[in-house]
């Protein structure tokens, strides 16, 4: 391996890593609440809401991310009233914003699937007990359903986070230079294909390891252990 190439490539890849990180952080930070909302919609008793959310999820899960990013970036700009709306144009007119939007919409669909199964796996008795205590639906969601579902969903969600980091590479197809975009440019510039590939994969693996470790720590934090001494402190009803 040639070290001058490594020294040359790393600063460029670091600037790319910043963009990748930006897209991924927005993807996780906005995609998670969006996905949970979708999951709630899919488990809601309202048939119309349920069907609409189902359709959204199957469309975004059934088509490649590349098509989605192209539809958002190239396709939507064609529609007149979207162009004239400043807010939407701010979202889709710029490559980086469009990439973030695409990642967010895409990961929302997958996250919804993860959380839907988590919500469905909750024991009925707990929710019924909460209803019997007179909790409002919002409090049941906040204090019973969500904490339990989060614990169920976290292992699957951590692999979704790794997927977000990888999917953010598609931003390079709409001229946003993130890690893969820089890697391609460096490959055609230096012709040291294998060296650049190895350095780039180290970047991606580091990002993934950091993300997965953080989630693993969170998982351990949330892990439910029955400690006999603490049992007295738990009160069944919010008073």
């Amino acid at each position, binding site marked *: 391996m040639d070290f001058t190439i490594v020294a040359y490539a790393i600063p460029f890849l670091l600037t790319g890593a910043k963009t990748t990180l930006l897209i991924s952080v927005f993807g996780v930070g906005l995609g998670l609440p969006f996905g949970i909302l979708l999951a709630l919609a899919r488990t809601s008793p309202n048939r119309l809401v349920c069907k609409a959310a189902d359709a959204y999820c199957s469309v975004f899960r059934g*088509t490649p991310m590349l098509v989605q990013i*192209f539809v958002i970036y190239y396709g939507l700009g064609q529609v007149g009233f979207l162009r004239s709306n400043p807010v939407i144009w701010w979202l889709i007119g710029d490559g980086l914003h469009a990439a973030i939007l695409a990642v967010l919409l895409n990961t929302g669909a997958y996250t919804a699937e993860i959380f839907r199964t988590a919500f469905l796996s909750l024991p009925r008795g707990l929710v019924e007990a909460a209803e019997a205590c007179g909790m409002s639906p919002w409090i049941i969601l906040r204090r019973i359903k969500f904490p339990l579902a989060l614990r169920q969903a976290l292992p699957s969600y951590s692999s979704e986070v790794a997927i977000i980091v990888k999917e953010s*590479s598609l931003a390079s197809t709409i001229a946003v230079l993130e890690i893969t975009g820089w890697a391609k440019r460096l490959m055609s510039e230096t012709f040291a*294909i294998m060296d650049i590939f190895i350095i780039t994969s180290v970047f991606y693996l580091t990002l993934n390891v950091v993300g997965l470790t953080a989630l693993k720590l969170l998982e351990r934090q949330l892990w439910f252990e029955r400690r006999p001494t603490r049992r007295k402190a738990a009160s069944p009803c919010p008073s």
Partner: protein
Amino acid sequence: MFETLWSLIVEQGWGLALLRGALVTICIGLVGMVIGLIAAVPFAIARWQRIPVLSQMVDVYSIVVRGVPGLLVIYLLFFGSVDWVQKVAVVFGYRDIAETAYPSIIGILAIATISCAYSIEVMRGALETVPKGLLEAAKSLALPPSVAFLRITLPLALRLALGGINNVWQMTIKDTSLVSIVGMQELMRMAAIAAGITRSPLLFYCIAASLFFAMTAVSQTLFGLAERHTNRGFSGG
């Protein structure tokens, strides 16, 4: 509105071009997936049996390919082989063939490389869930190891692996869209060409999206049927 649609899709022939592209996509996906699956079997067995050096090498391969975007793998294979293929082709006098068939071969190879890495994990997981007792029973009946593997382990593991293979297939068919970036004439590339020439990207990318959606929906149904078929006699039915 409808007239322009009609003229774009039928009279200018873009509809047919997109359908042909879709066919190419299905072919790349299928061939890549099958090559990946066949290659994954020995690798998965190596990991399952923990064969010393091979097992670690397979591990590194699968971790790297699964941890890195598909686009990067495609760039590596495509840029990494241009020079080399050109030289080989000139030596053997197959220059023309090499130039026309080259993107498709590399495209299929890239898809196979990616799907193989995921298939290894699926198969290893399935092989590990085959009950030990069955293998011991086979051994006590003095079945040769090859027969025990082909008649007992493999059929059981395949049933367990089917769900995972379904996931890998869904991912593979969607990954084929990435090959368009290096110039292969499949559905996504056709849509991009059509969008460029006719200046109506929204229409053509939406058509491409719906064709992809149709592919995944149909294959999902087929896998559902296959799963029901292989589960006969297992779940009370």
